[in-house]
Structures are given as structure tokens and as C-alpha cells.
């Protein structure tokens, strides 16, 4: 079952403060991802991997093409959807783990993850279990992550991203600041997510991690080279 279907996606940036310089990053990108499949975006720096991932989340607004995602039983085109539809898709369907945690002052790690885990009675227990699995000790759960190390913040971010149980998960270098033991945990979590039928698109610079989780690699090239 197709979870994501990208067709003819084009995206560029016009830098008005630099004399209207126009940067074309994506042109004619097509990509299909099935439920239960993990696709890794690969290619050199500047190939548009992050741009594509952010376009899939609706953060970067597409200039051309369609980004269809399966949401509540039908395919919704994020490239044409209004703000409320995109929010609804993000709430139920589309999860995103950014490279860095955007820290909210005073909100404890556990609350950040529990908020993503849902509103049911078990949400907090699931959040706690996820944090422990990602080696965030219980003593830290009640603290705001502002003072945590980079690796700890990334693990809180991962716990939040996986807590939502979204059918589609977008991962932007989820293991960049992690040690070997935590990388192995993330690999196991991605595999479990796939087994549970979730579709995953990720950027994994660590090739061992990529080989361990990806079913397919989507190679990207910078547009100037491709042209």
C-alpha cells in the first residue's frame, strides 16, 4: 500500500536579499514509499535531501508537482493542501524528527514526549518507556532539556518523534550525535516501526545505520550536475 507518492516535485528558493538570486534545488522529483518500507535519501551535500524531506512535511512549499500522502484512508496532496489540512495530516499521519530539538523553556523532557504520545491515560507511561529505552535516565525526565547534551537532546527528539505512532515518519539524520549503543537502539526502533507498517523516509549519513534500516536508497544529485 502506497503511503507517499511524489510526482514531478520542483522546489527552488528566491533570495530577495541577494538581488533576487534564484536557487533551483529540486526538479522533477518522483518517489514512492510503501507502508512498512524505509527509503533513505542519499547524495552529496547540496543534492536537496533536506529540502525534499522538508517538502514532504509541508514546511517547504512546493513550486511544482504533487506530494500525495495517505491520510485517513485517502491520498491528500500536501503541495495543494491548505494550512488546516496540513496540520491535520501532521497530527495523525506525518511525524518528523528534526536534527536538533527546538527546546521550549521550562517544559520537562517527559512532558515533551508525553504530549506527542497522545491524550489517553497510557501516554505518559509510553513516553517514560521510550525515554528509558533511549537511555535518558528517569532522573532527567522531570527536567527541561535546555541543559541536556546534544546527544541527550537528540534522543528526547527521537522519543517525541516515535511516540506519536504516525503511519509516516520522516527522519533527518536521527543518529548524528549518538554513540554506538544508542545508534543500535534507533536501528531497532526503525525496524520495529517498519514491521508495524509505518513508512519511513530518512537521511542517514551513517552508512552502517543506513544499510541496517533502508530497504531502498533514493539517490539524489545537485541540479547543476544533473542538468
Amino acid at each position, binding site marked *: 500500500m502506497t503511503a507517499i507518492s511524489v510526482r514531478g516535485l520542483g522546489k527552488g528558493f528566491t533570495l*530577495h536579499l541577494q538581488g533576487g538570486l534564484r536557487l533551483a534545488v529540486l526538479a522533477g522529483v518522483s518517489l514512492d514509499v510503501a507502508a512498512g518500507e524505509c527509503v533513505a535519501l542519499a547524495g552529496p551535500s547540496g543534492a536537496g535531501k533536506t529540502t525534499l524531506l522538508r517538502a514532504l512535511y509541508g*514546511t517547504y512549499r512546493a513550486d511544482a508537482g504533487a506530494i500525495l500522502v495517505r491520510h485517513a484512508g485517502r491520498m491528500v496532496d500536501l503541495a495543494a493542501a491548505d494550512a*488546516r489540512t496540513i496540520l491535520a495530516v501532521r497530527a495523525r499521519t506525518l511525524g518528523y524528527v528534526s536534527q536538533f530539538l527546538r527546546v521550549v523553556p521550562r517544559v520537562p523532557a517527559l512532558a515533551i514526549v508525553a504530549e506527542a504520545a497522545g491524550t489517553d491515560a497510557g501516554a505518559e507511561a509510553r513516553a517514560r518507556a521510550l525515554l528509558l529505552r533511549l537511555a535518558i535516565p528517569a532522573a532527567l525526565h522531570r527536567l527541561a532539556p535546555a541543559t541536556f547534551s546534544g546527544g541527550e537532546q537528540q534522543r528526547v527528539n527521537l522519543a517525541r518523534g516515535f511516540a506519536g505512532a504516525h503511519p509516516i515518519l520522516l527522519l533527518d539524520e536521527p543518529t548524528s550525535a549518538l554513540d554506538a549503543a544508542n545508534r543500535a537502539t534507533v536501528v531497532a526502533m526503525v525496524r520495529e516501526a517498519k514491521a508495524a507498517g509505518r513508512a519511513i523516509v530518512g537521511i542517514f549519513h551513517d552508512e552502517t545505520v543506513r544499510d541496517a534500516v533502508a530497504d531502498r536508497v533514493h539517490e539524489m544529485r545537485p541540479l547543476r550536475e544533473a542538468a
Partner: protein
Amino acid sequence: MLSARGLGFRFGSITALEAVDVDLWPGEVLAVVGESGSGKTTLLHVLAGRLRPDAGQVWYREPDGPRTEVHAMPLPLLRRLHRSDWGFVEQDPRQALRMDVSAGGNVGERLMAAGARHYGRIRAEAARWLAEVEIDVARIDDRPTTFSGGMLQRLQIARTLVTEPRLVFMDEPTGGLDVSVQARLLDLIRTLVRRLGIAVVLVTHDLAVARLLAARIVVMQRGRVVEDGLTDQVLDDPRHPYTQLLVSSVLAT
């Protein structure tokens, strides 16, 4: 729940608003950003029915109710909305608070204006709301003149939210406060707004505040909306030259 079309407003020869459309859904936080003089505060006052626009309309829909044109409402009806279903948080809390009335009185007064009569219950509610905004309940009988700037702003928020409004207008609620005081206030607003499901129109020049609180952003320049979208779309993929200038002018959001 709130929708405006074609709003125009002029101060003499200066155009403060031109052809502005706004839509707000229940429980949604919408940030209006732009620099001083962009028309954002004028827009807030027009949306709240405090300023009558020269052109265009604002409609408000009550839950399961009819749609009413805000500027065509009889004044008593608009006042009643402002006393309970709507709230307005001023940048300067001294404009909204009665400085010669106790903290508890300031909160209780709005409950009484909304129809509450039982003194014991009003005082208990006032105490509960002081605690919600992290003001020591022992200060309930103190006058706001003895409060710090951050406490005054928290007191104004308690006074506004005590009637559990559906819609709150906020004009630079963290403006003029120290950074550490701002963080506490932002967290408080974020928590309360989410828990109570309040819709907010938030005017701010601070993109970090918009990022933290709002799901959607409208960018204003010289009285016009030049860009709008989800907060991350507008801040991470700004398209209009003015939005790009705003985003590039801050260190980090």
C-alpha cells in the same frame, strides 16, 4: 470562528490597513507579525471590534450559533462578548488592571462582570487563577502597585482567562519584559491556551514568540498582508522579500 474580509483603515492620509483578510478557527493560535507601523495592532483592534474599519467586515461565530458582523453588533452585545467570551491582553498590563484594587479583586471583578455573584466562590476562583499564573496566593489582597512587571502581566492574564474565554486578543504580551520573565510567561500562555483550547490572535514583532505559540502566521507590511502560512512555512521558507528580511534579521528562532 472569526473571519475578516477586505479590511481597510486610514489614519488621515496614512493607510494602516488595506484589503486584509483573516480567518481564525476555534482553538487556533494565529500570530500577526511585522515591524512597528505595519498595521498589526490596528488590525487587532479592528478584529476585536474596538476600531471601526473604513472598509470590509469582521464576522464572529458563536458555537453552533449564527454568524454576527462584529461592527454591526449593538454595543451592549459587543460589551458582553468582551466581558466573558472574549479577552484582550494589553502590552501594558496597567491599561487593563485597576491599580487601586487588590489582585484578587482584579480577577474577581471580571467574573462579577460576567454574572458571578457568590462572594466565596469568586474569591476561591480568583485564588485558583492566581495560582495558575504562579502568583503567590498570599498576595491576593495586595494591590498591583506592589507587583513587578512580569507579575502584572501574569495578573492580567489571570484576569482575562478567569471567564474561560473562547477567543483572546493579545498585543505584544511579552513586550518590555526581561528575557527570563518572558520565557516563563510564554510557557504559561502556551500551557493555558492549549489546555483550555482558546483561540488567540497574537500580535508580536518577535518571531521567536510566534514560533513558540502560533500554528499560523500572517506577515504584515505597510497595512497589507504580504505572506501567510503555517509558522514553519513562513519562518523556514519565507517567500516575500519583507518576510525574508524579518527572518534574516534575527539571530535564531
